[in-house]
């Protein structure tokens, strides 16, 4: 048995050696055994290739996700937000540079649509649409909706697809990053505006990622602080004070500001003063915050109940006459001389007031604006007056303006304003019902005119403490008030000077009153469909 096994091995081995010899000597002739080697080599190559292929697919997929899909997904949001910024900038122009607002855009009704902007080295695309969707019933100020779309082209092989592997039955990335490989999924599923209208199969030239955001631009009204000075500040007098109240909660009560247990107390501490320079001499008591731009105000030298922050710069752009296109122009009167009464034909609204153009307001002019009477009943009446010159032109002049309850008067003036505090009569006592706007002096080309200094001087003659309820928006005017009037309202001016024991009460209801002077983004939503 052992010998037979040995012989067999010997024979087989011998045969192998013969074959080897034959193979080595005659390579041109193949044999079954050389085929085996080739087969083994091919199998090895196949196995290694399969492994390499699997590795390559995994690597490419993950590489595509990490370097292309995630990047494009984030870049698409950046593009969408860039589109939102562009739209926001155009919207701000409606206040700051109306003649150039939405230039180059397509406008249809209340909707403005931008051209496509290409940005960045990745050729991101941004487009947006702005529409007026709401008018404030009280102020008439518009609210705008900005819808912006950002598109980022996606690099990498589209055939590699997405990394959707997680566990069986669950989708991974495709739920989050909705890539348009061949067709725009949003338009086909929801329509171009996302409202289900106009669904269509729209092919995309390259794989892309799109993201959409919706912003709401809210109007900024001018009277968010009691006193806001773009230049220097001096005042208000050693015995003066600035406090606040909320007219919605009843009439002003001077005891509330010193009574923390009173439920109205929180509204009494908003007599805020904002100064956009370092030149700030604070006198009297401030029941609110004080902000300066580089000032040195401290609580050691002042009586300030709230926060002191000496690093709060702000922008106070010149004021331009707003558009009167929706206002109801009334031709008469066109001058205020002696006793002049205006009785508008209709009540109108904040967005459509009765509009009077006054070319002259005499020093002795006494203007009274009555409510519209319809059917024998006095109406809530909205009136806008544009005085193209001064209202009083010397400190001894005493023009008067009288506004009964139910009248909401806005006075725009191009020149200066000088009178006595007690000559501003607002019967309702509500400062929002009497608003003064000083239109910034400009050069013929529309640029601000630095050579003209606008002024507003209000004096309290004869030591009178009689004051007024009104607001002033005069970013280019120097404001001076003397004496000790009791004032309800707010002011925005260039340099502020008060020398007397002024009692200044800011009405927190003014937060949202007045003409829009700018816009802020009040809401941000992403459409994740």
């Amino acid at each position, binding site marked *: 048995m052992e010998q037979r096994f*040995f012989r067999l*091995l*010997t*024979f087989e*081995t*011998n045969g192998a*050696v*013969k074959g080897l*010899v034959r193979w080595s000597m005659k390579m041109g002739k193949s044999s079954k055994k050389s085929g085996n080697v080739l087969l083994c080599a091919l199998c090895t190559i196949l196995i290694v290739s399969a*492994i390499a292929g*699997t*590795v390559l697919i*995994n690597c490419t997929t*993950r590489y595509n*996700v*990490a370097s292309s899909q*995630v990047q494009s*997904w*984030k870049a698409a949001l950046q593009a969408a937000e860039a589109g939102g910024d562009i739209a926001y900038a155009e919207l701000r122009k409606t206040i700051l540079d109306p003649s150039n607002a939405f230039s180059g855009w397509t406008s249809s009704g209340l909707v403005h649509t931008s051209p496509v902007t290409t940005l960045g080295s990745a050729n991101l695309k941004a487009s947006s649409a702005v529409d007026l*969707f*709401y008018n*404030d019933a009280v102020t008439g100020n518009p*609210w705008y*909706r900005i819808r912006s779309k950002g598109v980022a082209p996606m690099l990498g092989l589209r055939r590699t697809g997405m*990394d959707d*592997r*997680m*566990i069986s039955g*669950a989708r*991974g*990335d495709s*739920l*989050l*990053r909705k890539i348009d490989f061949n067709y725009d999924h949003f338009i086909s599923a*929801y329509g171009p505006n*996302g*409202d*289900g209208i106009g669904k269509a199969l729209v092919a995309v030239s390259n794989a892309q990622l799109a993201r959409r955001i*919706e912003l*709401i631009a*809210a109007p900024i009204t001018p009277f968010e602080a009691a006193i806001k000075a773009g230049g220097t500040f001096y005042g208000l007098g050693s015995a003066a004070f600035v406090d606040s109240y909320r007219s919605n909660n009843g009439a002003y009560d001077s005891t509330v500001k010193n009574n923390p247990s009173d439920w109205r107390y929180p509204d009494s501490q908003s007599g805020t003063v904002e100064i956009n320079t370092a030149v700030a001499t604070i006198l009297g008591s401030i029941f609110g915050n004080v902000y300066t731009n580089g000032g040195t105000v401290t609580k050691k030298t002042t009586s300030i109940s709230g926060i002191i922050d000496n690093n709060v710069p702000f922008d106070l752009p010149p004021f331009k006459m707003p558009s009167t296109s929706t206002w109801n122009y009334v031709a008469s009167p066109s001058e205020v001389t002696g006793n002049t009464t205006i009785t508008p034909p209709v009540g109108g609204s904040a967005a459509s007031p009765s509009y009077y153009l006054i070319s002259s307001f005499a020093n002795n002019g006494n203007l009274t604006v009555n409510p519209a009477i319809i059917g024998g009943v006095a109406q809530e009446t909205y009136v806008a007056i544009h005085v193209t010159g001064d209202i009083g032109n010397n400190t001894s002049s005493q023009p008067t303006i009288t506004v009964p309850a139910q009248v909401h008067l806005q006075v725009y003036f191009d020149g200066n304003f000088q009178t006595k505090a007690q000559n501003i009569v607002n019967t309702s006592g509500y400062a929002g019902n009497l608003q003064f706007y000083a239109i910034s002096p400009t050069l013929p080309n529309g640029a601000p005119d630095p050579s003209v200094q606008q002024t507003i001087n209000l004096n309290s003659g004869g030591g009178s403490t009689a004051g007024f309820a009104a607001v002033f928006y005069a970013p280019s005017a120097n404001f001076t008030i003397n004496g000790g009037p009791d004032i309800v309202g707010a002011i925005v001016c260039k340099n502020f000077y008060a020398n007397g024991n002024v009692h200044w009460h800011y009405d927190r209801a003014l*937060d*949202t009153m007045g003409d829009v002077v700018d816009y802020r*983004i*009040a*809401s*941000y*939503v*992403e*459409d*994740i*469909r």
Partner: protein
Amino acid sequence: MRLGHSRKKCGFTLTELMIATGTGGVVLAAIMASSIALQKTLNAIDNYFATQMQQIRIIDYLNRDVKRALAVTTSVDLQSVTITLPSYLIQAGDPEAIANPSLVGTARTPTISNTSSGPQVNYGASTSTIIYSISGMSILRTENGSVTMVASSTDQLVPQTTDVELANTEYARTSVTFQPIFTSGNLAAERNGTTLFSTAYLRNKRRG
């Protein structure tokens, strides 16, 4: 040249065969061990990168929702995040959808209301709620009761989020870690080495 005449010398002795067989066995065992190790390594690397992709996905989901949120609240153990956000889209069961079912899935037009802190933009009468939580090996995202699995891995993905409230805004700081399957001793350092950080701010004014 004389191979044909020395048959006995052409073969192998038993000793030679045993040595050859033993050597072959050792080589085969080494190849097998190497193959298994290679396969394990490949699997571990594949798993590692797959889990990294899921880390990114968790962060991206969270950031997207935090940016459009009105408020973010994290649990004490930092592993559950509740996000309140505007109800931008009309859902089945909403008053608008009941009145007109074709509106389901479409966007709402916002309304403005006046509050003690100023005007406020609203999408619908109520807000939506999204909750991120951990369930076993999975990270779940529950939006108004509807559950979506955001990530799932045997590598024990652990997201941790803290929310920091500021005067009018808020931000959420998130870190996501996992335990790679080929770690040597389940050391904390090995988990820490996989950490992915992210910070996202609310774009909206914080409510609540």
